[in-house]
């Protein structure tokens, strides 16, 4: 049995930013302000709501006062820090702490939060988190008690630079790197993808579109056609809005990056502090590393290489903390300090956004710099095939189906298998809000995405939509994967009123009350939700039987979509197996015996006569001697008496089900052709040809509901055929989701 998916649990406690310049490594920023404590008032504050500001800051002030007595640095520690070199004064301040050392107790209030992380001195922790040189761009993992410090450190090159020298000389990485240049650099890098973070080539496989990397140069491109590479580069629903940021862009870009100073950035390391449950340790750590830590680190490396980004941000943050400490050490408090840092440093803002979104299991949209936005998430399954039993972790409300078509990272990149052509999209929020989100951002796929969203419907498959709208199928599949990956939609088999839907055994009954209220708002003047669910509760029947009149059809289809979206219902799909009736087995055995007899008589001619006798048997059967096949005859009770000799005169033939007709071996394929002949004789050539086509679906894993779509037949006809075959005893059907 497959393992059950676990409910999302990011276990994220804090994010730390560690940099090392020429001397000591330092944690220059961490979020939340007080890791491991209740930071809710800080979070409120960062919603930029000035009304909240006062109350929250005062409360935090109190708290910091309370705890201020706890930690005063040991003497040796102070000495150690003050000894550390300050050859590059601006960047190389020993964090926020250095000016306060002289202030002693006066500044202790503000400094202690910086210097005390999880009960460890910040400087001690920084040394623990400082990776060995061999850890460059590798997973870094250190555990202290129940906490894991997870990161992917990035080192400067041995000569202290960040860029491969042969690609571009240092001098050209001036602040005003033009878009053209960026592109050229990146294109150059495509050749040698060793050092660079370039997302367009396959090296970026893990980080490409899903990180949603986007540079200005891309968004300026005229290309509106969807060639694969553009999709990959820009595959991202929420993109940077370059208009709104142009002000800030000019401001920041004009800040002359002092090269001597920045050269000194030797290592940067964003550390994610997790507290995973012991049993889920590996899973949670891997999830976080693969989906968030690694992608952020790559993006920062790319931006650092391009524009000395991390060094600049580090300078901004350190100068701010220093400035705050100096100016008003009395009134200093964490809340205002954080407010300042986050409003001034895009990296700090990104880290705080990332923390808040990831801890809430949402998608984090962060703008690292003006040219680089990315979206990070820990993906969550959209459906489960197995109903969790009482012992398994429960995931109520999750869509229960085996018809899953969840795109992975690969799909979004366009490398992996596509969403099935016979699926369609079920939007998870209303069209207008999705369109608004898409249009709020500039991206080359905005227009095709909008166009596609306007024509998509949950009742028509991708293929049908492609045919009616003229959008190429592969584009639709790409756009759809994109929307699914970013949790805007879900891929489902198209809804149809003749299909059977039942209340999902995995429906989240605890939500029933709120869902009923929402339902009543959206569908007034219709039966309430409990009534609808009640109607779907009993013997499975087509959804159309619920629809009172033709006029109600579209409304009821909307209801169905709504129910599917909330995981209230699931489609009951029909699965079928070929049943080999006793008389077929008998006929085949007889024929084989006859052939054997005739072969004994005329051994020279056997080959050809065999072929004709077994009518439409495929040639592969001929290689098997008939006597052998009869001994192989799978009797369902064979396990109990395998030692018995071959002939079982009176009733050896009992019906059996064929597990996999597509890969049938010699004897089963003989049965299949005998059934086919039988159908020809009893139901006519039409039914026979249909049977031959359909037989591949009768393996218990292909839903019968897909046959009309795939083969282009009428549902009614399929239903009739199935009924006929079942009546003839050659087919067994069962229903599940």
């Amino acid at each position, binding site marked *: 049995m497959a393992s059950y998916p676990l409910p999302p649990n990011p276990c994220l406690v804090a994010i730390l930013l560690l940099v090392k310049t020429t001397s000591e490594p330092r944690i220059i920023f961490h979020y939340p302000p007080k890791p491991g404590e209740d930071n809710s008032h800080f979070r409120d504050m960062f919603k930029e709501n000035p009304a909240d500001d006062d109350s929250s800051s005062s409360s935090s002030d109190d708290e910091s006062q309370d705890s201020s007595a706890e930690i005063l640095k040991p003497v040796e520690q102070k000495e150690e820090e003050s000894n550390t070199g300050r050859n590059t004064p601006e960047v190389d301040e020993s964090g926020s702490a250095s000016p306060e050392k002289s202030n002693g107790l006066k500044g202790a209030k503000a400094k202690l939060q910086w210097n005390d992380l999880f009960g460890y001195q910040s400087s001690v922790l920084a040394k623990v988190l400082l990776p060995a040189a061999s850890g460059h761009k590798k997973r870094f993992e250190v555990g202290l008690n129940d906490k894991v410090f997870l990161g992917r450190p990035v080192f400067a090159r041995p000569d202290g630079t960040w860029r491969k020298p042969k690609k571009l000389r240092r001098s050209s990485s001036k602040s005003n790197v033009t878009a053209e240049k960026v592109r050229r650099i990146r294109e150059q890098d495509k050749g040698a993808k060793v050092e660079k973070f370039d997302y367009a080539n396959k090296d970026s496989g893990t980080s490409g579109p899903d990180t949603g990397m986007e540079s200005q140069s891309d968004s300026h491109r005229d290309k509106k056609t969807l060639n694969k590479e553009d999709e990959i580069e820009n595959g991202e629903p929420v993109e940077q809005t370059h208009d709104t940021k142009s002000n800030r862009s000019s401001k920041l870009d004009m800040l002359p990056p002092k090269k001597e100073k920045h050269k000194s950035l030797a290592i940067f390391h964003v550390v994610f502090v997790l507290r995973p449950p*012991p049993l889920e340790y*590996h899973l949670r750590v891997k999830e976080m590393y693969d989906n968030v830590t690694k992608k952020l680190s790559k993006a920062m490396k790319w931006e650092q290489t391009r524009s000395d980004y991390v060094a600049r941000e580090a300078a901004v943050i350190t100068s701010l903390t220093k400035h705050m400490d100096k100016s008003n050490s009395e009134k200093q408090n964490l809340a205002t300090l954080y407010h300042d840092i986050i409003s001034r440093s895009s990296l700090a803002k990104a880290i705080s956004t990332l923390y808040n979104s990831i801890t809430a299991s949402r998608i984090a949209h962060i703008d690292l710099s003006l040219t680089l936005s990315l979206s990070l998430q820990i993906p969550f399954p959209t459906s489960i095939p197995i109903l969790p039993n009482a012992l398994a972790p*429960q995931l109520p409300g999750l869509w229960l189906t085996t018809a899953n078509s969840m795109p992975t990272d690969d799909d979004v990149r366009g490398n992996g298998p596509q969403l099935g052509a016979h699926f369609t999209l079920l939007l998870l929020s209303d069209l207008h809000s999705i369109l608004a989100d898409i249009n709020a951002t500039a991206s080359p796929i905005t227009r095709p995405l909008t166009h596609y969203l306007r024509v998509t419907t949950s009742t028509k498959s991708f293929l049908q939509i492609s045919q009616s709208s003229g959008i190429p199928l592969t584009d639709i599949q790409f756009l759809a994967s994109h929307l699914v990956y970013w949790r805007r939609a879900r891929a489902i088999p198209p809804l149809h009123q003749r299909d059977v839907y039942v209340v999902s055994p995995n429906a989240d009954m605890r939500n*029933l009350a709120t869902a009923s209220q929402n339902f009543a708002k959206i569908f007034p003047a219709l039966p309430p939700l409990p009534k609808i669910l009640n109607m779907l509760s009993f013997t499975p029947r087509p959804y159309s039987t619920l629809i009172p009149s033709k006029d109600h059809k579209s409304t009821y289809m909307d209801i169905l979509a709504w129910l599917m979206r909330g995981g209230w219902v699931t489609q009951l799909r029909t699965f079928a197996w070929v049943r080999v009736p006793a008389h077929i087995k008998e006929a085949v055995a007889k024929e084989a015996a006859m052939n054997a007899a005739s072969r004994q008589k005329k051994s020279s001619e056997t080959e050809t006569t065999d072929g004709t006798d077994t009518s439409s048997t495929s040639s592969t059967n001929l290689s098997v001697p008939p006597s052998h096949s009869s001994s192989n005859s799978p009797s369902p009770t064979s396990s109990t008496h395998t030692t018995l000799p071959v002939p079982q005169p009176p009733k050896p033939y009992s019906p059996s089900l064929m597990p996999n007709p597509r890969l049938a071996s010699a004897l089963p394929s003989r049965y299949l052709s005998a059934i086919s002949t039988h159908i020809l004789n009893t139901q006519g050539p039409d039914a026979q040809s249909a049977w031959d086509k359909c037989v591949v679906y009768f393996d218990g894993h292909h839903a019968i509901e897909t046959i009309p779509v795939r083969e282009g037949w009428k549902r009614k006809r399929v239903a009739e055929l199935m009924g006929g075959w079942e009546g003839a005893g050659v087919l067994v059907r069962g229903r599940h989701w």
Partner: protein
Amino acid sequence: MLKAIFFATFDVTEGPKVLHQVPTSSITASPSSPSIPLLHFPPISSLLIPHPTLCNSGLLTLTHSHHRILSYPQHIASPSYPRNAYTFNFCLVLAEDAAFSSYVPVVRKLNALFRTLEEQSQFLSCDGSAPDSGKIYALCEILLEDLNNYSEAMIPIDASNTLNIKLFPTYPPPPPLYAHHVPLATVRLEDLVDENWDLTMLRVLPWIDGVNSVKQIALLADADFKLVRKAISHLLYYGCVLLLDIFSFGAIYAPTPEVAAFVESKEMQAECGRYVALGEGDGLGAEKGEEQEEKGTLSGTHLAELYLSLRQGHSVKSWCMERADVAARIDVRRFITFGVIKGFLYRVHKYALATSIHKSGSKRLAKANFHRLKQREEQQTKEKENKTGGEVENVDLGKYLDGTHCFDEMCTDLMVSEKELTARFKAWGDVQIICR
């Protein structure tokens, strides 16, 4: 599986140093050594012999070259030592992707014990034996072998100290257990029992048969329900019991996607055939094969078809009536239970939802209650009142009508039959039944 154990200490002249290691040369190898070490010690030495503030404060793990090191650094400050301190760390090495939670207590105990010994008698610092020799090395060696081979170790250290260590697996906490759950033993529980077992447990065990619900077990064993629930939760935690639902002929079962596995598996069909056969105790008649077949065991194909014919909205009772010929030849309860145990059948539970609760708060509810009470009174007079405490029960009923409680739960808690429950719903008024 432990890869290595090593003892690192802070050498006054050499700094952090691996003194003893098992297997030899697994951590630091001399140039002449043929084997390649698992780790490269110098870069991680400062973490394993860390800053004093990180010592004595708990577990420190790190990953390095595809291995995970569990350690518990110890720092003893005393003027008797050179540099006034002694720092050491016993470290366990595991594969990076191995589950390590059961080794955490080991490393903690190991370091705590040696800290005590060191404080008492300077056991470690005065041990002058050469690297990879002496009693500390021997101890590490025995520990590694015993833990890997027997998952436990008992190593005498000196006259008064013994190291006792056992690896305990970590299981997830058991799910919440409700009165209507039916435990079914997966092992012969009576074989596990010894006289030290809990008294309630001993009373409960005979009644765990896959038929009785937790509540029924409590009644039958004449034990407190809460204690019974706790006892069964224990069994659940160790995987000794499964949870089923209360079987009744009025219940509805339907196949899940796992049914495909049953259709394809001849072994499972044969197992099922033996299990559901009438008259056989517990499938022990399997060897009789042919004989049994003549007695009327169904073929695997037939069983599969029977399972596929179960469906939503169709109770076991009506299924039996539809297939009376077959139903008479098998143990229907076992037939259903087999499917539920194997996970290819699921019970379609019924839930009741009083729409009035959801519409608008308590006023409406009170009104409904009033109506209901009136109706109930009428009904009671009509039925000549053969039940007691009707009102109280109805007030109880209200809290079950939010759609989160299944019929089984209500029947068990209220101690009524499903028939009476539905009658009460009728009396209540606007109750929607939802099956899922």
